[in-house]
C-alpha cells in the first residue's frame, strides 16, 4: 500500500522563476493539503484540495496556486519565486479532510532558491 509520494525530492531554482511540485495521495484518500516548512519551523498550511476544488487557503499570496486531478493527485505551483520561498514543501492526504481524519504526509520536496 503506497503512502503519499512527492516529486521531485529536491529542486533548485533562481529568483523570479516558476516551479511545480507534485503529490500522489495515499491509496483511498481523496483530500490533499499542502504545507510549507521553513528551516527550524513547524509546517504552515498553504491550502487544501477536495473534489478538484480549493476548499480552504492559508495566509499565502496568490503566487501559490494548486490543482487537483480526477485521480486525486495534486500539484503546487509557485510563481515569481522569492528567496523566502526556500523551504520543505509537504503534501498530506486524508479521507474527506475533516479534522478527525489524520493527515498522512509525504517526505516532501526541498526547494532552494538562489
Amino acid at each position, binding site marked *: 500500500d503506497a503512502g*503519499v509520494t*512527492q516529486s521531485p525530492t529536491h529542486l533548485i531554482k533562481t529568483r523570479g522563476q516558476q516551479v511545480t511540485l507534485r503529490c500522489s495521495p495515499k491509496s483511498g484518500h481523496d*483530500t490533499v*493539503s499542502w*504545507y510549507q516548512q521553513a528551516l*527550524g*519551523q*513547524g*509546517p*504552515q*498550511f498553504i491550502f*487544501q484540495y477536495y473534489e478538484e476544488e480549493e*476548499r*480552504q487557503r*492559508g495566509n499565502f499570496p496568490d503566487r501559490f496556486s494548486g490543482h487537483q486531478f480526477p485521480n486525486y493527485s495534486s500539484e503546487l505551483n509557485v510563481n515569481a519565486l522569492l528567496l523566502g520561498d526556500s523551504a520543505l514543501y*509537504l503534501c*498530506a492526504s486524508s479521507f474527506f*479532510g*475533516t*479534522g*478527525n481524519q*489524520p*493527515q*498522512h*504526509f*509525504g*517526505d*516532501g520536496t526541498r526547494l532552494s532558491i538562489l
Partner: protein
Amino acid sequence: AQSVTQLDSQVPVFEEAPVELRCNYSSSVSVYLFWYVQYPNQGLQLLLKYLSGSTLVKSINGFEAEFNKSQTSFHLRKPSVHISDTAEYFCAVSFVSGTYKYIFGTGTRLKVLA
C-alpha cells in the same frame, strides 16, 4: 486566535531516562490533537492522536500523551527513551468545525544521549 505552543525547542536526555515534551494550544472551538515525529530528511509520521474518549492515548512504541482540557495541554511522555527516539516532534491541532487546516507547533528536537 488559534495557536499551538511548544515551549521547549530542544530537549536533551540520557538513554533510558524518562522524557516529557510539552504542548499547549489555544482555540475557541473544540479540537482534535496529534503528535507527529519527523526524522532527518523525511516527512512527518503520525505518532498518536486524541479524537475523543479516554484522555490518555498511547502509541505502539511506548509514547503516551494526555489531553487536559482545563489546561489546554497535550504533553507527550515516554518512561524510557532510546537512541532511536532522537528526532523532531511536532504537536498539531485540527478543529471539530469551521476549518480544515492543521495548526502545528514549532517543534521540539529530542536528542537522546548515550
